[in-house]
């Protein structure tokens, strides 16, 4: 069998596995966020927090909870790194410098996991497990909580109540992410991912001499890194490192972990708004875009255009033999169409167009299927925009799921979709215009520009992957990508929760013959079109200067 049929079969197997998990997981998650009962362990947690999980919150109270919890998270993770030098269990590693600590703290709290540091030489056991991995859980749970709040906004009527943030946070962590990660971690260890708390291993080599590597709780972190669409690697090489991703099976399994919750959340959405068909329409939109991107990526990587790849006879630079080009392409698309940013191969050495596909995936807003929670709320915002466009065409007040999309709603949705492009383009333009930031580029010409564009696209969309030749460990990039991550995470959340509050307050509009049927394939087509056109118009000039110039040269 050649690499093409093998790639297609892997794609089919992955799709089948995701399909099998879709209904049970999606329905389970809907129950988690709707149930009136608390687990005993959760009651202990609520006692510890000192919060009543049954108090309903308005959108602004919900938002204050999100912001307070995240602010404390940034501060705690910052201090943990700054104090690493005196913390026990840190392999004797020194404290991390202020700019890098800020960048990393923001990065993990915003579910971005951009890394301007090399994991294996910088972070000891305590920071990795009690700092970074904890944010892998809770930042994902925060994303899901905000998505669920928006879904409640659609599902509820004539109320200001969107649920309880603490309850959603704790349930997402304890009932969904923790059991999923625990099972996944054991599977990963069984395949060779390391899991220990020993110090630096020094082992002999075949030809003599020795090599040193760190031990660590890698499997437990790897599992939540993928399941929570986080993406921050224990090691610098991320999921290309054999200790994070040792076999072809673990590779496919990790892609599955990345995609399973974001896709299944469309089911959760359908169940909670009382029409699973509405969930299927959103699912179909996400799946269509994901599949199209995978096909495009496989084609360009297997065709391996570009002087160096032609000279080598294949696009193997930055890719591992055990995964090959096909599986690396599926991983690259899945990680950039979600907010993951883990990599099993290095995007900077992809073909020019392949690198462009990874960037375009992030520029869509990471909604196909997107990060845990953030993918669903991003896609629902696009659905609101699509409904609005359709309403303009027929001259009718648009409505979605029985809620009128009026002036206030469309303003909030418009603000949402403007935030990240503004961040990406302004930060990129300023970095290119200033004298010193361009010194961080590794490659020259169009690809050098792509490195900077990629960095801010990744940071603003909370992805975390990179054209990693860029030296991002400078005060400029640590600070500016840090700001981009903060604004790119929390400004959209403000608009989402405000929208949720506004929707929940409405009375439902009855369905009539004139209502746009948003559960039909026509709407899916409209939505895919709206997403591609809006993103295309926004980013085409920037893409033309970078990946298109390189890919079409």
């Amino acid at each position: 069998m050649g690499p093409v049929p093998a790639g297609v079969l892997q794609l089919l197997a992955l799709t089948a596995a995701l399909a099998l998990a879709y209904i049970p997981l999606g329905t389970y998650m809907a129950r988690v966020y709707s149930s009136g009962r608390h687990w005993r362990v959760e009651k202990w947690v609520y006692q510890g927090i000192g919060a009543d999980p049954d108090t309903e919150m308005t959108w602004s109270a919900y938002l204050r909870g999100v912001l307070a919890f995240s602010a404390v998270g940034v501060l705690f993770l910052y201090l943990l790194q700054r104090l690493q030098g005196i913390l026990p269990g840190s392999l004797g590693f020194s404290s991390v410098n202020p700019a890098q600590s800020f960048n990393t703290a923001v990065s993990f709290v915003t579910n971005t996991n951009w890394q301007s540091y090399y994991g294996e030489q910088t972070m000891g056991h305590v920071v990795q497990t009690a700092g970074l991995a904890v944010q892998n859980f809770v930042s994902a749970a925060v994303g899901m909580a905000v998505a669920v709040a928006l879904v409640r906004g659609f599902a509820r009527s004539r109320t200001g109540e969107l649920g309880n943030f603490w309850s959603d946070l704790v349930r997402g962590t304890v009932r969904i992410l923790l059991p999923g990660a625990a099972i996944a971690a054991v599977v990963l260890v069984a395949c060779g991912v390391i899991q220990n708390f020993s110090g630096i291993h020094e082992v002999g080599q075949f030809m003599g001499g020795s090599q040193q590597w760190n031990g660590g709780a890698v499997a437990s972190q790897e599992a939540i890194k993928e399941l929570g669409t986080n993406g921050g690697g224990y090691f610098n090489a991320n999921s290309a490192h054999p200790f994070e991703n040792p076999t072809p099976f673990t590779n496919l399994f990790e892609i599955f972990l990345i995609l399973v919750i974001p896709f299944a959340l469309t089911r959760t959405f359908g169940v909670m708004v009382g029409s699973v068909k509405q969930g299927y329409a959103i699912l179909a939109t996400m799946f269509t875009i994901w599949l199209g991107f995978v096909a495009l990526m496989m084609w360009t990587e297997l065709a391996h255009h570009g002087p160096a790849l032609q000279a080598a006879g294949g696009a193997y630079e930055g890719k591992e033999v055990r995964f090959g080009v096909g599986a690396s392409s599926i991983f690259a698309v899945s990680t950039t169409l979600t907010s993951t940013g883990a990599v099993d191969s290095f995007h900077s050495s992809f073909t020019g167009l392949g690198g462009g596909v990874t960037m375009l995936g992030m520029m869509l807003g990471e909604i196909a299927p997107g990060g845990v929670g953030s993918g669903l709320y991003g896609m629902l915002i696009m659905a609101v925009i699509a409904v609005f466009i359709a309403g303009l065409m027929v001259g009718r007040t648009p409505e979605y799921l029985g809620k009128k999309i009026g002036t206030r709603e469309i303003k909030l949705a418009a603000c949402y979709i403007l935030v990240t492009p503004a961040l990406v383009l302004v930060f990129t333009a300023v970095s290119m215009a200033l004298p010193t930031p361009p010194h961080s580029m590794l490659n020259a010409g169009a690809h050098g520009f792509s490195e900077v564009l990629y960095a801010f696209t990744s940071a603003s969309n909370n992805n975390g992957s990179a054209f990693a030749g860029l030296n991002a460990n400078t005060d400029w990039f640590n600070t500016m990508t840090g700001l981009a991550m903060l604004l790119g995470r929390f400004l959209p959340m403000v608009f989402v929760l405000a929208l949720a509050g506004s929707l929940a307050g409405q009375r439902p509009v009855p369905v009539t013959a004139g209502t746009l049927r948003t559960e039909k394939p026509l709407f899916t087509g409209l939505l895919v079109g709206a997403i591609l056109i809006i993103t295309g118009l926004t980013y085409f000039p920037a893409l033309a200067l970078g990946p298109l110039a390189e890919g079409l040269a």
Partner: protein
Amino acid sequence: MKNSVTNTARLLGAGLRALLVLTLVTGVIYPLVVTGVAQGLFPGKANGSEVRADGRVVGSSLIGQQGYSLDYFQPRPANGLGENSVNTQYKLLLSGATNLSADNDKLVTSVEAAKAKVVRDNSTADHRVRPSQVPADAVTSSGSGLDPDISPAYAGLQVHRVAERNGLTDARLRKLVDEHTEGRTLGFIGEPRVNVLELNIALKDLVAKAHP
């Protein structure tokens, strides 16, 4: 005003307590339980899949090594691999890729140089290797710099050289490579591969038996 400050303080307090409780659950209990299960069920794998030969540890089957002499099978280039630049009391392997772009002249030059070297190393008086026979993995650096594998094509290309240098027949060595070729998992996942360290350990055994 005073009220909103107190409210904010109360909210941050709740946030801090939530973070500490969840840190205990996901940052202490969870990794310790997984470590316990891992060390109980799969101690070898959980500790790095170390490989022993001649009574000593010679590496991990998952971590590629550089520096094999030409008597042995060669791994992929690892131009992105580094050594730690902070916490320099250690000499850690720093995993990584070159990140050079497909149109970078440096990458073109290094690929061409690697190809010329593969051709030169594997050609002998009676055996010419053509550049077109050299597979892509032989001349490119992996994503981690630690790729433990090479493609069966690259292993096959090296058979004649390694056989000649060790006084073995090509056929015997080809058999050895076949024995160490792992196909796609379930026939379709990933790509076929040969683990260089394991192959070289087996080669050393074979040579020791053939020339006692």
